[in-house]
């Protein structure tokens, strides 16, 4: 379970994340919505320990991620924006590196790599270098590194961004398959995604949470009952409306 309390981030004089609090339990898929620049990525980077928070706490299974970042990171899988990976490495070489950094050795390491490759359906490309793969496969390579250690918490930053409809479908299938056993956060600005995979959604705008509820309760906030209208209503300034 992941618990975020009053998380703040300041870059110079600008406060980008202004006190974000929420929890995600096992079995939940939390959609993290907001316009570009709302603070989604910064929030996720603070949760995963990539950026230090200016203030606030992150509790991973009840343990403080600031006090013991290494233990917290071991419980999280993270798919960063744009799914980075080392392009000169092969798929299996890359996953082997990730497995070693995560502390796996010998037969357990091999089993972990094989399982991750199987789950992400990458058997045909396992010995190909990542730089030669299509964007959809690169996304899956990065997805595979995020789930290699079967983490109780999975955090994904725009996992379907830039993929074609079939690839999007595959990624959503993978998320749905894992949903019951993990606490998952998925950030997106594609609203159809919320209906497709999320059990709950948070809308963040200018660094603050402006809505938090199931897709149905969010929809009920607009007379039209459409998620697009709710999103616009909450994230577009009065003068722009």
């Amino acid at each position: 379970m992941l618990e975020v309390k009053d998380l703040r981030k300041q870059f110079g004089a600008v406060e980008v994340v202004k006190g974000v609090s929420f929890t995600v339990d096992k079995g939940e898929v939390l959609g993290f919505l907001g316009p570009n620049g709302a603070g989604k990525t910064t929030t996720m980077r603070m949760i995963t320990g990539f950026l230090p928070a200016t203030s606030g706490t992150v509790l991973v299974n009840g343990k403080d991620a600031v006090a013991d970042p290494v233990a917290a990171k071991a419980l999280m899988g993270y798919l960063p924006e744009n799914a980075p990976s080392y392009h000169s490495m092969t798929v299996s070489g890359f996953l082997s590196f990730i497995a070693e950094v995560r502390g796996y050795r010998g037969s357990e390491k091999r089993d972990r790599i094989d399982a991750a490759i199987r789950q992400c359906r990458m058997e045909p490309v396992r010995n190909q270098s990542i730089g030669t793969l299509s964007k959809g496969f690169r996304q899956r390579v990065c997805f595979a590194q995020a789930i290699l250690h079967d983490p109780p918490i999975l955090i994904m930053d725009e996992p379907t961004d830039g993929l074609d409809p079939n690839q999007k479908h595959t990624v959503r299938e993978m998320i749905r398959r894992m949903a019951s056993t993990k606490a998952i956060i998925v950030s997106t600005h594609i609203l159809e995604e919320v209906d497709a995979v999320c059990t709950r959604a948070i809308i963040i705008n200018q660094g603050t949470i402006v809505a938090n509820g199931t897709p149905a309760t969010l929809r009920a906030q607009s007379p039209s009952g459409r998620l697009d209208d709710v999103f616009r209503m909450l994230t577009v300034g009065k003068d722009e409306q």
Partner: protein
Amino acid sequence: MKTMAIFKRELKAYFESPVAYVFLVVFLVLTGFLTFSVTQFFERGSADLQPFFFWHPWVYLLLVPAGTMALWAEERRAGTIELLLTMPVTMTQAILGKFFAAWLFITIALALTFPIVLTTMYLGSPDLGVVAAGYLGSVLLGGAYVAVGMLTSSMTRSTVISFVLALVVCLVFLLAGWAPVTGFFDQWAPNWLVEAIAGLSFMPHFESIQRGVIDLRDIIYFISIMGFMIAATHVVLDNRKSA
């Protein structure tokens, strides 16, 4: 063990790309050319490696920044730093893994110059103690260059900027004790500062080890330079604002 995983990946990355091979060939050809043609190794008629080690600070100046420029800059550019630093490793483990990989790579390049030792042994009878000291000095000097290169690489996403900065910083360290440089500072800086700057120079420490005098102070000097650069890299990476 986690440091080891990062070390292994980094070292493999050199050999998985053409970088390693271009680097090794250029390093060996350049040192060979400078030693034999420019300083006239054979014509000197003396069985020592002085003309060989003489060039190392200058060859390293050009090549080590090229070997280290990608260490962090490429991770930042490609965004893989976000993966690396969200793995269950400490910043120190990540930095040390990379540092030792780059240092070993430079040391491999240096080790491949062994034919020159064999040549000298075939032609005469060099003092092997002095030769070993020369190599030790060169390894330590290489480590100091690598540490500087790693620091400048952590400061930017651009490998070009990283290369140029490393070259300039290393040049300052090389020339710090040289009269025109101390003269420049003499005009306005207090005396103690001029002496402190001159005392930072790589050159006197490298030269004294190279002559066969292994003084603990010289070794401590190089290790302190590396330690300082590694700590500074830690500070730079802690304070970055994004990838």
